[in-house]
């Protein structure tokens, strides 16, 4: 028989995590669908359920100088309303799911779900988000790119909880952002391709560029070694652009699935890259 536990703080949660076979659940908007069996039938969870919504430390939403801490229970709707939510992340949140799901689903859940099409992931990768993990043995922090290892796969240990997400908080006049989600319809759609871009320009010079592309591979594609090719430049020459696109061309390896084809995804991703490198940061 599956047990359920409703800890009110991390210490209680950790005591529960010491048992094996734990499934943390916050809003449940992904987990309940994945474990759905039929009308009136108990969902197919086989692990002991750890309901996280009452864990005080995971309900924190805080700005500390130049850093944001987003507790793991923070819903997508709360983040849309929060005054400090970075613009790029808010752009993605506004196009994600529909109001009833956003009222319940969490940012942390979208990360742990680790879908290559996860809507918040490209902005989080572009902003170098860090995930904060807690296990009975101690805590650790990891860049999001090291946390997600494949579709539905993360390095989260069996007894570990994602307790929050750290994001840099920078108020910059010269920050350029771009987000595009390509999907069948505006609401409640899963991305065919998505792209998030964040760049800083100072005195006409490109200081930094971060481009993250979703749903074109097993994990979000971001190429820091290519991004730095644009750094320090005032304008990007045709030759440099050609080099940049050829690197992305090699790295982007989409698949055919129910939502789209590899060829379509590749073409749209390359078009979006051209748009950000030649228009957004021009």
């Amino acid at each position, binding site marked *: 028989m599956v047990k359920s536990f409703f800890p009110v703080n991390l210490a209680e949660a950790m005591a529960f995590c010491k048992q094996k076979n734990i499934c943390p659940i916050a809003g449940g908007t992904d987990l309940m669908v994945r474990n*759905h069996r039929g009308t009136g039938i108990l969902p197919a969870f086989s692990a002991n*359920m750890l309901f996280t919504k009452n864990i005080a430390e995971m309900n924190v939403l805080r700005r500390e100088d130049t850093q944001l801490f987003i507790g793991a229970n923070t819903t997508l709707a709360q983040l849309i309303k929060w005054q400090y939510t970075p613009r790029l992340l808010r752009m993605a949140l506004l196009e994600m799911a529909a*109001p009833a799901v956003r009222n319940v689903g969490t940012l942390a859940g979208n990360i742990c779900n680790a879908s290559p099409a996860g809507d918040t992931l490209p902005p989080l990768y572009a902003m170098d988000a860090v995930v904060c993990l807690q296990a009975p043995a101690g805590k650790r922090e990891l860049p999001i790119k090291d946390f997600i290892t494949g579709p539905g796969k993360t390095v989260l240990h069996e007894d570990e909880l994602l307790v929050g997400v750290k994001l840099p908080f920078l108020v910059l006049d010269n920050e350029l952002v771009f987000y595009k989600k390509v999907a069948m319809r505006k609401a*409640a759609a899963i991305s065919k391709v998505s792209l998030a871009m964040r760049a800083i320009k100072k005195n006409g010079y490109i200081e930094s560029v971060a481009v993250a592309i979703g749903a074109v591979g097993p994990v979000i594609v971001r190429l820091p070694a290519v991004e730095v090719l644009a750094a320090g430049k005032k304008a990007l020459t045709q030759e440099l652009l050609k080099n940049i696109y050829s690197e992305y061309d090699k790295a982007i390896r989409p698949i055919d699935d129910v939502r789209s084809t590899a060829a379509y995804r590749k073409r749209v991703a390359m078009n979006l890259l051209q748009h950000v490198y030649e228009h957004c940061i021009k």
Partner: protein
Amino acid sequence: MSKIKFILNGNAVELDVVPTMRLLDVLRNNLGLTGPKEGCGEGECGACSVLVDHQLVNSCIMPAGNVAGHEVITIEGFNKQSRYKKLADTFARAGAVQCGFCTPGMILAAEALLNEVPHPDEQQIRQAISGNLCRCTGYSMIVKAIKMAAEEGGGLW
């Protein structure tokens, strides 16, 4: 099984249910409230919409454990309020109800919107019902009904 206590349509309830049971099944099967419908069963159609702490949620993907200590309103509770009477009136006059399957969810989505934004523009209305599918009306009559309720509902929201 766990004891789960919450407020349902203004009354305290205490139930013995497995906390991972879908709120929709608890409402329909344990409590006999058939206003929330099962459409898609995966949080995409909004037929199962209810309000939890006055926020619109899909009861088909909400584990019952997550409403413990919270307030749930279904169409059966909302229909005693004057806000409901206004929405029911404008939905009828605008022709916003055909088969009726989406209507409890649509009315609660409208309530969730008007509760926060008493005078929404058309885009806000369309966004607010973007997770509620209707296969009969083509939406325009529903949008019109919500707009009429906002205009005529002086002081209700």
